[in-house]
């Protein structure tokens, strides 16, 4: 019941909010925050109660749902999902806190949208029935659409429609693939109709079937990641989204794609994974470098961070498709880190934006003089994102590169350059914003240092960034059984891992 409780607790929040009066904004905010904090505590309890050495899924719940079609309400977590679950509950309340004052319009709807968004994301990470997974996957789409569309910036309508159509088309193709899997499994397993991940993996599908299914999954997951060349919706969505939306979008929504590859594409379609492995590595390498290069030339602060996400998520895909333990563990850890770091960077951008309502890098400067505490926080997150040893970003990228060199040193070397580029654009950005003289003098009065609630949400992120950087084993220990299980399923057909 614990997992259901975690997933549906936001719904309780919605039920609490519904009868409240829209004018009573602080009550709405506090209620949402309390519910999300409670959810976060529950997921911390889950982390503590989780057995790190056991393989397989834990805290399972498995009851019939659409019984007549053999579809079940099956939840469960392994090391991979438990980390992402924690990340989700953490970033959710942080996101709410980050727009504590910025959002004054339709607060009630805003809070409801965030609670539903959290519900959908949590559900995606724990669903073990593909159909249930799909339902949660799509639930995520609508609140995000609303959040960008209602509380977003000037070009919000364009951004939302683009975001929705990109992801919706991908998802629908995935739906067809899921249903094809349903029948293919039934055909191969004596007519047993199920979409249970634990059972789907026991059957060997012919390659000719795996390829189209892989492509359909790719359409859904790669858009979410987003993998070059399907990333074009991301900068638009980020620029228009309110800070909290950006945090969730970068921190968690992008992880859904990586999670999908890890949980479904790789284990269920091992041969197609090997078949498309080189292509995926190529795309990932391009994404890594492309994202970094484009970041270099951005004039908008938020867009810069958005493109850096494309680069970092490229690392995740790289790590997944090298198909060795280092790569996979690195990829998962990189997802976790990226959630923390990029989430934090967006928060930092949001803090300044809330004060001066400007994100043009050229207009800003000298912030360190006016906001010294902020500058300190921001430096840690920035350096973490660069990949400085001792901070979170380093561990993930290092492991991914380690894995990559084991498979293709060319991809490894090319990706290495991206780290150098990242150092370039992030340090430049930091110097530009923090130290150069402020051109727009009248901003000086607005640039007040961090408030208490802002420190409150940056502090846990800071602690985690250092923790992961200094002692990553706490987190990697969660991953070993899950990763070896994925590798075992993926290498059932031999191939890339052995090369």
């Amino acid at each position: 019941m614990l997992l259901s409780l975690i997933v549906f607790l936001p719904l309780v929040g919605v039920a609490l909010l519904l009868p409240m009066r829209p004018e009573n904004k602080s009550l709405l905010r506090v209620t949402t925050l309390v519910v999300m904090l409670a959810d976060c505590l529950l997921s911390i309890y889950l982390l503590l109660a989780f057995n790190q050495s056991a393989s397989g899924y834990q805290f399972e719940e498995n009851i019939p749902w659409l019984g007549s079609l053999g579809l079940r309400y099956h939840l469960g977590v392994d090391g991979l999902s438990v980390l992402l679950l924690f990340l989700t509950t953490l970033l959710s309340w942080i996101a709410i806190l980050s727009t504590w004052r910025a959002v004054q319009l339709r607060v009630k709807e805003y809070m409801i949208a965030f609670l539903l968004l959290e519900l959908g994301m949590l559900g995606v990470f724990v669903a073990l029935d593909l159909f249930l997974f799909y339902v949660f996957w799509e639930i995520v789409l609508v609140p995000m659409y609303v959040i960008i569309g209602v509380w977003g910036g000037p070009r919000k309508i364009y951004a939302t429609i683009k975001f929705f159509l990109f992801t919706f088309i991908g998802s629908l193709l995935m739906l067809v693939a899921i249903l094809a899997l349903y029948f293919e499994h039934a055909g191969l397993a004596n007519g047993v109709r199920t979409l249970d991940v634990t059972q789907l993996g026991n059957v060997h599908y012919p390659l000719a079937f795996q390829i189209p299914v892989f492509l359909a999954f790719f359409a859904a997951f790669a858009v979410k990641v987003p993998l070059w060349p399907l990333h074009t919706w991301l900068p638009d969505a980020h620029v228009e989204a309110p800070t909290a939306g950006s945090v969730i979008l970068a921190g968690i929504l992008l992880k859904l794609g990586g999670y999908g590859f890890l949980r479904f594409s790789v284990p269920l379609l091992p041969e197609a994974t090997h078949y498309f492995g080189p292509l995926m590595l190529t795309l990932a390498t391009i994404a890594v470098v492309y994202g970094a290069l484009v970041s270099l030339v951005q004039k908008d602060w938020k867009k810069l961070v958005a493109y850096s996400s494309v680069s970092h998520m490229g690392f995740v895909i790289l790590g997944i498709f090298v198909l060795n333990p280092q790569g996979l563990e690195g990829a998962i850890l990189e997802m976790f880190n990226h959630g923390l770091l990029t989430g934090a960077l967006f928060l930092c951008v949001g803090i300044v934006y809330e004060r001066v309502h400007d994100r043009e890098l050229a207009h800003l400067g000298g912030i360190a003089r006016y906001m010294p505490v902020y500058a300190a926080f921001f430096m840690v997150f920035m350096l973490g994102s660069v990949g400085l040893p001792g901070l979170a970003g380093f561990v993930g990228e290092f492991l991914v590169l380690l894995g990559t060199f084991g498979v293709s040193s060319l991809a490894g070397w090319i990706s290495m350059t991206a780290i150098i580029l990242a150092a370039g654009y992030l340090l430049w950005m930091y110097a530009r914003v923090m130290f150069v003289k402020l051109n727009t003098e009248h901003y000086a009065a607005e640039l007040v240092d961090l408030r208490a609630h802002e420190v409150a949400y940056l502090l846990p992120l800071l602690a985690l960034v250092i923790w992961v950087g200094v002692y990553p084993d706490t987190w990697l220990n969660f991953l070993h059984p899950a990763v070896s299980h994925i590798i075992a399923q993926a290498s059932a057909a031999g191939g890339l891992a052995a090369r």
Partner: protein
Amino acid sequence: MAVLPEVVVTVLAMLLLLLDAVLPEHRKSGLTWLALLGFVVAGAFNLYQWGSPAQSAYGGMVGADNFTVFFNTLFLATAILVVLMAPAYLRERALPFGEFYSLLSFAVLGMMFTAASTDLISLFVSIELMVIAVYILAGLARREKRSNEASLKYFLLGAFASAILVYGMSWLYGITGQTNLAKIAGVLKATSLDNPLLLMTIALLAVGVGFKVALVPFHAWTPDAYEGAPTPATAFMSVGPKAAAFAALLRIFISAMGPAQPDYSLLFAILAVLTMTLANVVAIQQNNIKRMLAYSSIAHSGYILVGLAAAQPGAGSDQVAGIPALMFYLFVYTFMTLGAFAIVAYVQAGQVTGESFDDYRALGRRAPMTAIAMTLFMLSLTGVPPLAGFFGKAYLILAAVHSGMAWLAVAMAVNSAISAYYYLRVVVVMYMSDTTERVPLYRSPFIHSMLAVASLATFFVGVFADPFLRFAQGATLGF
């Protein structure tokens, strides 16, 4: 008593007609309650018959089986929801209550007998009872040019379609020598399927029914008729007669012509793809919301038809088959479409037209609950989980993939994505654009309760779909 629900509706129709004549003008709104009561009682009798062994009545003219119960449930639910949405609109526009309700009852009666018919003759007469009543409903706002025109277009093309349909029926009788559907199937089983006459009969019947359910290229009447008719009548037309026409389609093509399935499967698959694609593409260009919903309803006919194309002979006991998927989709479609039209009626009742997208500006602020309900319906029509529309589409796609028509499934998925564009436009207008407040929305407990019912159904039939799936699975016709 196999036809008790039908009898109740007949009595109701007559009573409404009578009371309309004798009641003084100011007491006529009481007719709403009478109509509600009648339909609810009929619905109770109807549901009571679920699961009782199939029986035949009136010399094999009608059958009382689960199929009938399923469709009657659908029709009566439609009727109840339409009665709930109508009063405010009718009062605003000074349309006659009594005539509306009694014609509604007659149409529902025709629909119920259409679903129950097991003989070509009773099928034909029932369909005609339904459509003639609906022609009049469409033209009920006789002072408005648009309504007259809608009625005329609907009538001319409807009569044309009936003529083609009945000519097809005459050939079906000619090929088999029977009018009883089961006996026709018996004869067809014994004959060869590459008979050119049989193909011609299939074509005639498909064209005839194609007009009634508004398939492309026989859809030309739909947008005009839907736009011009009074909105509650439009809501009814887009759900009731369409569901009944699908029931007739199933009775003809499954009960009677099931053995000829290989002959028509591909025909319907192609019609389905044509219908959904063309309708969705045209719907994107609409600026009138009623017209947009009309094209949306055409597109949904295309989706529903996928179920028939994917029907496989001998799949009677299979849970994953085209027919239960088709029926489940009709069930889902009823609530979300009626809900959407009810909101159109609600928004326009205070105005002369009130049908353009501009009239929905900032509805999210002017009427938050209504806007949430509309969002729910639009998302469900798009097929976003966990709403009912999603499960309907998923089930149809499932059936299409199962019958080996993956291309049909992909076409449906792509079309859902196209449709997202225009459904979301409504949401965008409601929440993301501003307006200077103009027309005050009025209050009507009827329409609010109707919206509550429709949105709850849209939500719960989705999240807890299983009982409803079983309802549809338990109601299919044997092949």
